[in-house]
């Protein structure tokens, strides 16, 4: 495969973007930062499928497309299915020698939001992973159903206010913890699974390249801060991502062949989670005295998870 140089940002910037402007994602939306990076990681032909969600509706505003590659949208839940089908057909035709260019290097990628990945498209994704297609699935995790007005999903963390898990006099927002999608995908015995963040552009680019190069089904959960629903100023998208990775709210790591865990970013100064929470309107209510226990619980969860990751990294099991 033709991967592009990511030695430093100057080299990386010599790539010609294949994701075009005048899409209609909100100003400052991290979805497009992630998609641009994926597409700039390789010179190969890309076949991309998107689930319904902000990315899909904003990049296919009839009669426009923002994609300079083959791109397909079918429904909310079936990007993994669509791309599986394309990949299976490609393989079959390659074997028969009936492709227009039989030596063409093609990579298959699916994008889904957390709503379509963790919830509504979950079984379709699981099926494609289990069947072992050669593709990379990237979840743009903004922890809510952003495109329909910010409903809670199983990716929404405990304590966050959403339109269907509202904070108020009787509630502190979502009651349940975030689903551990990375562990679930690793349990599919996938050759490459990772959690990555756009502020750490290099580890994200490396992870994307690894996934594209690895044969078989790869899954990457990416943190995608959503200024509209997380309620912060659009200019702060990367600042918020820095807080997410430096408080370890979003640890950056990969799991190879289901067991070899590598931590990809260790903050020099781990920040208290309050700093991340205080920067976003969706957690505002947690700073009332009666909700102090929720912040404590979030911090406890973070500490325990970080401990678990470090032990698994050491144990290689």
């Amino acid at each position: 495969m033709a991967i592009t140089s990511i030695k430093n940002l100057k080299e990386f910037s010599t790539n010609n973007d294949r994701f075009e402007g005048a899409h209609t994602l909100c100003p400052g939306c991290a979805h497009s930062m992630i998609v641009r990076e994926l597409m700039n990681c390789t010179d190969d032909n890309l076949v991309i499928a998107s689930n319904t969600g902000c990315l899909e509706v904003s990049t296919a505003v009839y009669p426009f497309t923002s994609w300079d590659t083959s791109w397909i949208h079918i429904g909310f839940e079936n990007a993994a299915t669509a791309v599986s089908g394309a990949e299976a057909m490609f393989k079959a035709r390659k074997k028969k020698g009936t492709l227009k260019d039989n030596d063409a290097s093609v990579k298959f990628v699916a994008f889904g939001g957390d709503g379509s990945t963790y919830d509504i498209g979950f079984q379709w994704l699981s099926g494609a992973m289990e069947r072992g297609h050669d593709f990379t699935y990237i979840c743009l995790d903004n922890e809510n159903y952003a495109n329909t007005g910010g409903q809670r999903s199983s990716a929404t963390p405990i304590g966050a206010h959403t339109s269907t898990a509202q904070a108020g006099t009787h509630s502190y927002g979502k009651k349940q913890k975030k689903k551990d999608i990375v562990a679930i995908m690793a349990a599919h015995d996938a050759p490459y699974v990772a959690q990555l963040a756009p502020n750490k552009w290099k580890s994200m680019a490396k992870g994307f390249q690894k996934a594209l190069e690895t044969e078989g089904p790869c899954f990457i959960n990416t943190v995608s801060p959503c200024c509209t629903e997380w309620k912060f100023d659009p200019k702060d998208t990367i600042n918020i991502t820095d807080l997410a990775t430096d408080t370890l709210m979003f640890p950056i790591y990969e799991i190879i062949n289901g067991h070899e865990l590598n931590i990809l970013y260790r903050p020099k100064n781990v920040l208290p989670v309050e700093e991340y929470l205080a920067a976003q309107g969706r957690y505002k209510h947690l700073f009332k005295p009666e909700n102090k226990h929720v912040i404590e619980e979030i911090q406890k969860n973070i500490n325990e998870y970080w401990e678990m990751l470090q032990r698994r990294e050491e144990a290689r099991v």
Partner: protein
Amino acid sequence: MQDLKLKAAEKRGIHQLGGDELVGWDEVTQGIILTSFEGDASDIVHKKAEERNYSDFNSYTATVASWRVKKPVFNIDVCIDCQNCWVWCPDTSIISRDKQMLGIDYDHCKGCEVCVEVCPTNPKSLLMFGEQEDLETALSQWPEKKKKEK
């Protein structure tokens, strides 16, 4: 109304998959194929935007300039070509060529200010100004280098 839609669709050469009847977006039944380029697109990855044969369907040919209230202005004298603004611009609006930052694509920039936030120089090489401000006036107001706070 129907006529207008058909005319608009005709102008853009839109056709429904499997037929040659022109349709508006709300009449699509089976699906739509849009082509991003005119003619051969096999080597697009090696072509810069200005060398590409974009079709009218490509959003590159559209603009979101009207979304902006403020715009980022680029001061080339301070820039160190680090490419932070390039990698994090959500709207593919930083024009970088041969490792150099050349300026902003104001057709696609939405004025989010992310590029200004991530610019590391002192003073910054990108700053926000009112949409109507001209370049010369903006550059004449550029702040001096800030002393490090202790």
